């Protein structure tokens, strides 16, 4: 695998853009919509003062759809000659102002995911992708670059988006619990 520091920033972005374009063609937006279970969606915005982990404790996915889409995302990430992740982000039915990452991958890269959150506010470039279907490059977090691209359903609507992301400088150690 190539160290992406040997590539110019433009070359890195080109590689990500290429993967993002393929992702739009390859990923099944209808299958993506079936990943999160209706029960998990029901609990996602419930508030219980006695249970601040209600959404997380009830979060669940349909294995078959999750794994099928995840495998496609992994394959897509392998198109890059450097370490890269392809993450799936989906709008949340009934909550047009929210979005969630539904699948993350092995390098645990993302410019947008906030550790521990399930539903979060979409950043403006995500809204652009969802509203226009355009691919957008984002360099919001120092040391990272992402290309966002739409995922379409069988009716031609934008069902969600992928974040194709890599380090644009040497990776730092990260901490999770």
């Amino acid at each position: 695998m190539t160290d992406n520091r040997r590539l110019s920033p433009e070359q890195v972005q080109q590689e990500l853009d290429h993967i993002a374009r393929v992702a739009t063609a390859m990923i099944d937006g209808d299958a993506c919509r079936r990943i999160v279970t209706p029960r998990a969606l029901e609990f996602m915005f419930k508030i219980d003062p006695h249970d601040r982990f209600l959404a997380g404790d009830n979060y669940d996915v349909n294995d078959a759809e999750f794994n099928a889409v995840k495998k496609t995302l992994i394959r897509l990430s392998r198109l890059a000659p450097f370490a890269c992740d392809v993450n799936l982000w989906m709008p949340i039915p009934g909550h047009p102002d929210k979005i969630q990452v539904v699948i993350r991958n092995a390098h645990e890269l993302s410019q947008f995911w906030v550790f521990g959150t399930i539903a979060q506010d979409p950043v403006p470039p995500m809204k652009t992708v969802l509203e226009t279907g355009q691919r957008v490059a984002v360099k919001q977090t120092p040391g990272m670059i992402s290309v966002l691209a739409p995922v379409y359903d069988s009716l031609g609507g934008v069902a969600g988006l992928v974040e194709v992301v890599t380090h644009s400088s040497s990776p730092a150690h990260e901490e999770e619990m």
Partner: protein
Amino acid sequence: MAKTAHPSRRTFLQTALGALAAERAVPGLADAAGRPYAPPASEARLVALPQYLRPDPFGGIVRADRSAVPAAGSFEKNKTISLECARGSYASFHLVVQTAVPDDYKLDLHLGDRAGKIQIDLFREWFHPLRSGEYYPDALVPASLPYRSQIPDPDNKITGQTAQAFWVDIWVPPHAIPGEYSGRAMLQSGGKSRTLALKLRVHPAVVPAEDAVAMDHNSYDDSWIAAQFPSRVRSASGNFFESDELFRLIHSYHRIFYEHHGVFHQLGYGHAGRVTPEFAPALEGEGSRKRIADWNLYDRHYGPLLDGSAFAQTRRGPKPIPFAYLPINPEWPASWLWWGEPGYQAEFVNVVGEMERHSREKGWTGTRFEMFFNHKKRYMGFSWDGDEVRFPKDLSYFKEYGRLLKKALPADTPVRFVFRADVSWDMEQQFRELNGIVNMWTCAGSILSWYKGAPKMLRERGDIVWYYGGPPEVTQPSSAIAELALRAWVWDAMGFIHWLAVSPGKDPWFKFTGGGTTLVYSGERFRLADPIPSVRLKIQRNAVQELTLLDSYKSRHGLERLKAEATRRFNRSTPDEWWNPRPALADKPPYEWTNSEMEAAGEPTRKLFASLDAAAWSRVREYVMQLAPETT
């Protein structure tokens, strides 16, 4: 693993009411209204306190421990401190220097031991300011004798400070000569001297080398080490995360917990499968050609821990770490891309098989290597919960990994691999369904409390069983940390895990958040290259060594009788009362349980421990010391 709840309002009220009564009983530490008082003008005072009474910087006792002041009546009498301990253990206490006005002082401590075996360690207690305005001592800064400084302490910067506390550890090695030892503590300040006589009785009993319960301290990754030791990072040449300095610090964390009769765990991967390079051998290839390419970082990290050489200079002696997480997760060593396909098994079996061979060739057979899945669906890496399963359908993954692990290992391997699961909601079902697959269980204490006899059942079938929670914050009575060890023993569990024990917060020195995620601190502020211990860690260590000694009398007195007496002394309870009845909700699917129902199910034991007093463990210790003259 999830953190235990904080003490209830009820605990607070009962502690406070008890404190007011206690202060009336013991003048000298504080007045009846809770106001500490200083020595007469121009005088200095030297006071000794039992370990369970934590001093504050104004000559009083911290709020959480005040109700136990009456129990300390006989600790210092006629300017004499009386201590006792078994061999192979520590006797500990607080020494407090008080001055009425800002002044310099010199503190010294001496114990006569012609054989030169008994050793004294002195630590300056750091007073951490809490948001409430109160100060609690916790971090212990190593100090050498004689110790010279001034009050107020120029480093701790407490306005109006009139008292500086020190933690004294007296280490009595297993080969020390039993008998009476004497010595003294001396204070010089304001041109005058104060002396306390010190009497130590060393019993013939020796604390067994194997702890009765494993007190484990968990952590994640190692980036926090860099954050807590920035000057060590700067001093390392090249990439700190591949440097000898990183591995020295990792080993130092293992040592501090080992010396305090504890275990240290570092999980080396994230929720979506990212493995930190120094926690795993480097891999190359794919499918049937996947193999280990480089052991360098892994061996430098783990080699000295697995052969015990990292502990060569410790008082407890060199010994391999008893447990270590493997880097195995759904994405390592096999890629999730191949899950359900022959390639997944090929990659898993090749690499895990190589790890077994490597460990066997190195003679790393003293450690249990844990295959453990920490990921949760809510972190979006995988489609199933590895940690705290709530949905029974996820158990099928455990069964498959159990099969893969068996496939990867020779049946007669001397290397000890275990399949560990951290369980909560669904534990009762998992105990049944994963029998013969999972053989190391770490259980949420609140839910395990419903299943009396479960730890014993698991032990009898050869499994390891621990329970988990978090370090009690400093504002809980000092005995709260001893309760965790005692509970494990009363329940027949083999250990307890502090889910996070190395995270003191951004500024523990001047903006302390309570210590609920740490039992050690970085020594960097004090120009030390290693972590430093805490008062709570010392109290826990002493409880473990005393519990281990108590447990060693079971063949003579019977385990149940020892438990009954220990719980009676601890909080006037019986061992049965340490369990909750199995609630009706346990018959519903775990994903239907609510927090309110679960809280209600824990009410009986919560009530029992709501009025815990700081002296609770000291009463158990007295019992152990009554038995100590016996040989085991």
